[in-house]
């Protein structure tokens, strides 16, 4: 087997919670708590989960836009978590990010040309003339026109701005793109355009994607494999085919059953979850899902379930799949 392009092991991010007059640290938000996964070259790994489960924090740590509290990130054989800030800046040429909010992530005072040239200047790629040509080329690649180069972000629609965001990520010819909710702010018809564009670019430029989103339909459509997060942990990870056809973790089952399907004749097997998502600053003991899980057992309150490979390529963190439990069934 070839080495995966990206390998993440035991990744954690604890944010201190400060309180009182002297800003004493009184606790921690366990935003990401011991997450491990890998991404193969040329594939799309989707990451889903509800608001606050740690998707963005995970994505940002991969590029070290946020320093991990613990854990390692290995990209293309290089351990990113050990690099000096200078070396890391170089490595970012190969890893780029696309953000949810194309409005906020593009400087409103710069022309599209200036925005797209910036990564080239930062990484010392080409001269002014060749940079300008690259800008025009990439505008065409993402379905805009070269005459758009002289315009400002506010002169574009939401979908067009997201195309600019994608073009900017492509400028340095990266291998991996981390897309954090790239279509969440877009209308349905525009969302389909951007998804199709991303798939086309992946085929043509042999890109690898980590696609973060909360829309399970979108993630199914674009991903080869999907990881499900809950309260800072990866609770299930499988090929998108298997995950959607046969979810194993009770949370994944509930999550999938809650997604409204655009078909009035569809009869769902509904699993309504009771209660709200607990706070990550005070997560429940054992399995963090036990406060809402319809199958919770005694051991769930005490022992943290580990992510284990239950079937080939299908990983689950749940005591229902402990060896003695499987024997029982």
């Amino acid at each position, binding site marked *: 087997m070839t080495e995966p392009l990206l390998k993440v092991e035991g990744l954690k991010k604890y944010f201190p919670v400060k309180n009182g007059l002297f800003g004493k640290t009184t606790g921690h938000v366990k935003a990401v708590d011991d997450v491990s996964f890998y991404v193969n070259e040329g594939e799309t790994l989707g990451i889903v989960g*509800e*608001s606050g489960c740690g998707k963005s924090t995970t994505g940002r740590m991969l590029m070290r836009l946020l320093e991990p509290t613990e854990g390692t990130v290995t990209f293309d054989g290089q351990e990113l978590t050990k690099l000096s800030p200078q070396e890391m800046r170089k490595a970012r040429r190969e890893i780029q990010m696309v953000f949810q909010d194309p409005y906020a992530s593009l400087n409103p005072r710069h022309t599209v040309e200036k925005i797209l040239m910036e990564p080239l200047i930062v990484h010392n790629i080409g001269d002014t003339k060749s940079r300008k040509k690259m800008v025009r080329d990439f505008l065409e690649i993402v379905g805009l026109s070269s005459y758009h180069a002289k315009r400002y972000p506010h002169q574009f*629609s*939401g*979908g*067009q701005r997201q195309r600019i965001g994608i073009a900017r990520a492509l400028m340095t010819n990266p291998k991996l793109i981390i897309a954090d909710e790239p279509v969440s702010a877009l*209308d*349905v*018809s*525009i*969302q*389909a*355009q951007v*998804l*199709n564009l991303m*798939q086309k670019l992946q085929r043509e430029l042999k890109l690898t994607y980590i696609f973060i989103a*909360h*829309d*399970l*339909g*979108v993630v*199914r*459509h674009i991903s080869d494999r999907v990881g499900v997060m809950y309260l800072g942990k990866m609770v299930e990870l499988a090929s*998108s*085919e298997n995950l*959607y056809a046969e979810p194993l973790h009770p949370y994944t089952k*509930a*999550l*999938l*059953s*809650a*997604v*409204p*399907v*655009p*078909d*009035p*004749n*569809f009869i769902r097997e*509904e699993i*309504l*979850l009771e209660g*709200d*998502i607990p706070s990550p600053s005070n997560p429940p003991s054992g399995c963090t899902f036990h406060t809402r899980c319809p199958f919770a057992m005694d051991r769930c309150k005490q022992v943290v379930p580990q992510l284990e490979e239950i079937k080939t390529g299908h990983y689950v963190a749940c005591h229902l799949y402990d060896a003695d439990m499987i024997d029982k069934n």
Partner: protein
Amino acid sequence: MTNRKAVLEVKNLQTSFFTDDGVIPSVDFVDFEVREGEILGIVGESGSGKSVTSLSVMGLIPSPPGKITSGEIRYNGADITGYSEKQMRQIRGNDIAMIFQEPMTSLNPLFTIGSQMMEAVLLHKKGWSKKQAHARSVEMLKLVGLPRAEELMKDYPHQLSGGMRQRVMIAMALVCDPKVLIADEPTTALDVTIQAQILKLMKDLNTRLNTAIILITHDLGVVAETCERVVVMYAGKVVEEGPVERIFTNPQHPYTKGLLASVPDMRFKKQSLYSIPGNVPKPGSIKEGCRFAARCSEVFGRCTVESPPLYQTAPDHKTRCFLYDPEEVTAHDRAIVES
């Protein structure tokens, strides 16, 4: 089902904004009705005029810059468009209630849930004592499925989760037993598992209290699961209207067809998604012809010159597209026969 009486009728409604860029008709001759005890969905892309339509019904269009420039809104047969602010307050209190898009901005962070609930009750139940108002508030909080209703009365909005706040908003909207409840994207800011709870609650209340609900959303899945009929809006106009069942299995307007084909379905993987080319037009930018013409795969001669009316294509189905002009249909049939 189809014979139920209309409680609310929106006829030829035009609501315009008078801006520096000129007069923009954000809602441009919109027609639809809400029938007793039904759940009607309104879908459409951002800026298509969903919120402006509902604010017009509630008499809450900010003026200036906005104004209802034409048409009427009939509640139980009476035109309420010309009502004074005082009369509208009566309507808002007792007949039509609304839940807004952002739950956080519609609750005051400085007051407890209890004091805000009681204020809403006392506004509508003149002469009630505080004790009665308190009891009614607790009853409403229980009705929307909130646990520990008594204690919740003493909590402040920030102490509640998003889903709980949305339940409080619904409880507050229901204190006056409205006949019509307008819910503008009530679950957009919520997670899917919480959304499922709120939608179930709305369906329950609809059945138990027979409240008619207008559910505004851009999520076609939500419409399919919750609504009986649906109105599809595009660029300030209703482009299609009909029973959910029909619209999803037999959509007629090219925009509705495109929209349905653009949604990824979680149950199976489509090889590639259909996508409607082009962008949603800026409001007021299209002066002539069908507003969808620039993006329509079936555009033909007259589409760019004339504005299509809403054609009745079946007893309960309307479509704003020339392809359904009875004359085009016969011309088309003739062409097929001749070829």
